[in-house]
């Protein structure tokens, strides 16, 4: 099989390429050039391209660079800024996977005559009895990346390979060491590849849009404080919001950018019985009917619940509700919510705002 391996310059994709070679595949390596601006971490700096190229040289495979900067800017960076401006908390790594690493790269691989695309994600693809495929958790639970791959549909899964998904990170590093790959001891990438650590999220957004000072409003409608930039407040955030009258920490319950307000409440106000989702996709084409485990952050603990769908929604606008077995924390709108059946990803979507808690009786909201 002719396989295009996305080589980020990290140890995981280095070993992925090596394992595919061992299996006898015709392997070509590619590094995606995604971000033209300044960067000091992540997957697309020049030194990472160098590492990927030198690993490919060592393995004796061709290495290419694909420039996806324009798409990355349009599909990941601009929506990231726009989401903040709408008071949401975006997850750009998921949008990058969705639009760049899979949609765009899979299509290019097809055009160029490749049978499959492989990456170094810690996840597996499993085949079910009915012939359909599912993303499943990687063998290394601490490094599992199935959460960021939940959007892959049957057509994508048929053409994706995750060669290191059945190994632990330590085993991957040992393998790289054994083969003398220069990336063996390279630290894992952290943070967003397009935001420098010296700059941070706030400066990045601020350079692209005006930020609005906002008011903190409690459930009684009283203004209880302020924040310098309402766009950068995340639902669930406590830092910078002060304490309530009874001395307990305040939580951001909802962010309203047009009104420049952040609704704050106590921890009890943070929990909801249901979490609404939008943009949902299901591996089987429909949501699971039985009990599921639902994960709301990259390495968060899965929580039990059920998926409910009011009516079949048109593709793209697909909505669903997660009904928790017992009330759970609100998920910040914009964050991915991924539904598992056992180790397998059944699908997922993006959190939308859960309804605010009812105002205490007698109070008139601002």
């Amino acid at each position, binding site marked *: 099989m002719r396989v295009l391996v996305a080589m980020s310059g990290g140890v995981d994709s280095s070993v992925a390429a090596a394992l595919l070679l061992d299996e006898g595949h015709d392997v070509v390596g590619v590094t995606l050039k995604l971000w033209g601006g300044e960067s000091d971490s992540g997957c697309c700096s*020049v030194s990472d391209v160098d590492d990927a190229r030198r690993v490919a040289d060592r393995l004796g495979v061709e290495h290419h660079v694909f420039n996806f900067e324009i798409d990355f800017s349009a599909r990941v960076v601009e929506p990231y800024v726009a989401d903040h401006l709408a008071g949401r908390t975006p997850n750009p790594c998921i949008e990058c996977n969705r639009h760049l690493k899979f949609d765009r790269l899979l299509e290019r691989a097809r055009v160029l005559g490749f049978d499959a695309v492989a990456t170094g994600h810690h996840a597996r693809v499993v085949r079910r009895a009915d012939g359909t495929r599912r993303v499943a958790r990687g063998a290394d639970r601490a490094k599992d990346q199935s959460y960021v791959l939940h959007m892959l549909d049957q057509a994508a899964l048929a053409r994706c390979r995750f060669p290191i998904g059945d190994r632990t990170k330590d085993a991957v590093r040992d393998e790289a060491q054994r083969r003398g790959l220069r990336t063996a001891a390279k630290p894992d990438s952290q943070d967003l590849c397009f935001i420098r650590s010296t700059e941070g999220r706030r400066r990045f957004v601020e350079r692209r849009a005006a930020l609005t000072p906002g008011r903190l409003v409690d459930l009684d409608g009283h203004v209880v404080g302020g924040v310098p930039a309402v766009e950068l407040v995340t639902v669930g955030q406590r830092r910078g919001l002060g304490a309530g009258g009874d001395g307990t920490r305040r939580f951001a319950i909802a962010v309203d950018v047009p009104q420049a307000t952040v609704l704050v409440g106590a921890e009890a106000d943070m929990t909801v019985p249901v979490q609404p989702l939008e943009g949902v996709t299901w591996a089987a084409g429909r949501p699971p009917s039985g009990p599921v485990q639902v994960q709301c952050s990259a390495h968060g603990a899965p929580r039990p619940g059920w998926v409910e769908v009011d009516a079949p929604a048109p593709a793209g606008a697909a909505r669903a509700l997660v009904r928790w077995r017992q009330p759970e924390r609100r998920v910040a709108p914009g964050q991915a919510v991924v539904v598992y059946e056992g180790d397998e990803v059944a699908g997922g979507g993006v959190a939308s705002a859960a309804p605010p808690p009812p105002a205490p009786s007698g109070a008139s909201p601002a």
Partner: protein
Amino acid sequence: MALTYLDHAASTPMRPEATEAMLPWLTGPEGHGNPSGSHALARRARRAVDDARDQVAEAVGCRPGEVVFTSGGTEADNLAVAGTVARRPGVAVCSAIEHHAVLHPVERAGGRVVRVDARGIVDLDALAGALDPSVTIVSVMAANNETGVVQPVAAVADAVRSRAPQAVVHTDAVQAAAWLDLAQHAAPAHLVSLSAHKLGGPKGVGALIVRDSSPVAPAPLLLGGGQERDRRSGTSNVAGIVGFGAALAAGTAARAGTASRVGVLRDRLVDGLLAAVPGAIEAGVTDVAPDRAHKVAGACHVCFPGVDAEELLFLLDQDGVCASAASSCASGAAEPSHVLAAMGVPREVAAGSLRLSLGWCSTGADVDRALEVVPAAVARLRPVPAGGS
């Protein structure tokens, strides 16, 4: 698989004369002298460098003392722009289609960038508008590296003489040197940049011609031992300089014949591509310039709307055809072309640009192979029209 090399504008094979001339200075028992010294081996190396200096001067039509050897075209361009501005602070002006080795130093100096027309030729009215006595240096290339379009260096120099008489005229002749008579074409420029590996010499060596007539001599960028008459310090790259001189001498002697022979091949290539691929557009060829007389003989630049150049290059590479899109960049990724953008080529057309550049050793078989592979690759990449015919 035999490779078909059609990327001579990026780098062209060494001429045998150059390789042969270099060998004694790489492997010879007495080729290691430092030309800055005084002993026998140093003097021998010094003489080799000065012989090469004579060869370059002869080809360019300047005095040997006006040749400053550099590490290549980029250093020559930087020395011209940044060195001149450092010597005499003022405004730097260049065309919008300059190589980044000129464009970036001009931008860093806060200079002015002048537009080009649809043919890719610098707009002389716009240039005149950008000139005033505050201008220190004006840089317009002799021929463009992407399109091969030849620039009116003499008219640029005339404009500078009348509107900014104290300004230095620089021309980046890196792409022109293999095709044009520099003694004539670059004569109006005070400063001329050259690169050896674009004309059959080795990589890592070039020159900036600094004519005595220049109103200002660029201040050196590299300080140290005072080589090249204090204009560029650093131990001379003896073998490289010798190869540069030999390549330029051999290329100059053969130039007229090479240009006419390659021009015929190039025309067959472009015409063949335009005939084989519906919708293909030749960059820089417009209603007012319907032929290729304004391009150097090796330049074939065609856009295939609806095709992604990166994908096209990948398929050509798989078939052993070496080509490029816009000028190559360090990371290996294709970059959007600032040259096509300046010519007003729409982005969706420029996205499908292919530069097939021929050189002194190109053959009819190269053209045949390209005409076999390129149209097939384009057909594969073009989306099938919805609903069939």
